[in-house]
């Protein structure tokens, strides 16, 4: 793990010991600190109405501040569907998502999706330059902060990439660069939780290392706009990666989350 010492000034004091536990590989006890509970999904159920089978079967899940959750399961078991359901991107047949104590529905959803960002396995950049991609989310109605290029340049610099990359059209980037660009695009919005859907599935080893380092650095630095520590859910088929990156592992199979069935 990198950068553990160079971390947190404000906002994370009360989670410090919890994070130290994380470094030792222990899972935080869910619900021991009610105010550190960031997100709570309850009984999420989704059916495929065309084919009639159940995609998510009453899945419940809690994310506390600072958690690094691994979500594993075979292909088609519902990993992506669960992350998408948490981000409220799919229409579910039942279930609720609460974030910071409030149920997330209707017009609360766009601001919620700035705080809890879903990153798909295949990065979806918009045609145009990299800069345009980073600026676009700041033009949305939900945006309450201006685009600051210095933040982007600092992140690129961490990766050893020049600022001139910003003027490149996105289709000239490699798959790995696109995935990392999508990650930067999300990070500059200052989310509290990242939902990473097999982020390194199509990356070469070098890009995978860069991506893991970026997520770890992001996770360890405090959010300027929240007292809570950042958290993420990471899905992967790579057991080593799950071991490296996460401290609590949840298994999903055929839409049922192990230990995650609702009441």
């Amino acid at each position, binding site marked *: 793990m990198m950068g553990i010492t160079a971390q947190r000034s404000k906002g994370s004091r009360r989670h410090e010991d919890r994070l130290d536990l994380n470094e030792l590989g222990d899972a935080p006890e869910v619900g021991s600190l009610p105010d550190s509970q960031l997100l709570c999904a309850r009984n999420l159920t989704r059916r*495929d*109405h*065309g084919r009639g089978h159940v995609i998510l079967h009453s899945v419940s899940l809690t994310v506390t501040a600072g958690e690094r959750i691994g979500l594993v399961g075979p292909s088609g078991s519902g990993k992506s569907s669960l992350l998408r359901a948490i*981000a*409220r*991107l*799919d*229409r579910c047949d039942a279930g609720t998502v609460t974030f910071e104590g409030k149920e997330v*529905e*209707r*017009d609360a*959803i*766009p*601001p919620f*999706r*700035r705080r809890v*960002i*879903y*990153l*798909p396995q*295949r990065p*979806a*950049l*918009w045609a145009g330059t990299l800069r345009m991609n980073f600026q*676009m*989310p700041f033009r*949305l*109605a*939900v*945006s309450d902060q201006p685009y600051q290029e210095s933040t982007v340049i600092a992140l690129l610099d961490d990766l050893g990439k020049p600022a001139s990359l910003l003027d490149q059209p996105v289709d000239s980037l490699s798959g790995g660069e696109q995935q990392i660009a*999508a990650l930067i*695009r*999300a990070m500059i*919005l200052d989310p509290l939780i990242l939902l990473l859907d097999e982020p390194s599935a199509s990356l070469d080893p070098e890009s995978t290392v860069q991506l893991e380092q970026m997520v770890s650095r992001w996770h360890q630095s405090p959010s300027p706009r929240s007292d809570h520590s950042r958290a993420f859910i990471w899905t992967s088929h790579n057991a080593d990666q799950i071991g490296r990156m996460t401290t609590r592992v949840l298994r999903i199979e055929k839409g049922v989350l192990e230990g995650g069935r609702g009441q």
Partner: protein
Amino acid sequence: MNPWLDAFAPLLGQLPARTASDLSLSWIEVGIAASLLAINAAVSLLLKLGLARQIATSSIRMTIQLAILGLVLKQIFDLSMAAPVLGLAALMTVVAGISAIRRIDIRFTSIYPTAIFAVWTSSWVVTAVTVLMIVRPQPWYSPQVVIPLLGMVLGNSLTGISLGLERFLKELRQRRGEVEGLLSLGATRWESCRDLFAGATRTAMIPILNTMSVAGIVSIPGMMTGQLLAGAPPIQAVQYQVMIMFVIAAAIALGVVIALAITYRKVTTTDHQIDWEQIRWAKKL
């Protein structure tokens, strides 16, 4: 003398020349035009296009459809009552709405009612304005004014709605990643679809804008041709043609915006999601 002309002399002799003010045709003369289809048949056979059968069925189908229309119009003209005119107009409108969808291969639940509603509202509003405020025939329901005007408006409006809906739904599916990218970074459902909505509206308007820009240079448009053949003064024919072009352009804009607005509300949810299960390819085309 040309031996070909000699051969046709007896036939031509039976066809009296007439003055330009009376250009009514007999069915024999329509038959001569039909024989020109032999050109299409020859091309199809020579190039092995395999269209001979389709040329035959399309021709027969068109003739029967128009013959029935002629008979119905004759009855309605003779009756001179509002109800039959409105009844025929309603039938034409519903058929236009259905045709708008039949030619595209991507659907959502209730796409047919959506198209019929959009065609109906846009065409009837625009035609009503044209008939009641511009042409002002006596009585207002004069079928020889209302039916051809509505027909022209419907024909163009259905093309616009068809193009617009197809473009919107296909782009939504093809650019799913980009649309969801916007949603997952905090866009509202409108923000995520706004560009597709605008692009689809633009696509729907392009044919009429092209027609308007070449009218009179490349072709003499249909309504003007009709009026000239009927002996109307050229300036009046021009005035009518310009008027109908504006009317058609308005109907297309109104129709496609109504159709897209309903579609947008159907395929998105109040939770700012795209309801992907709604959108699917047509089973057969």
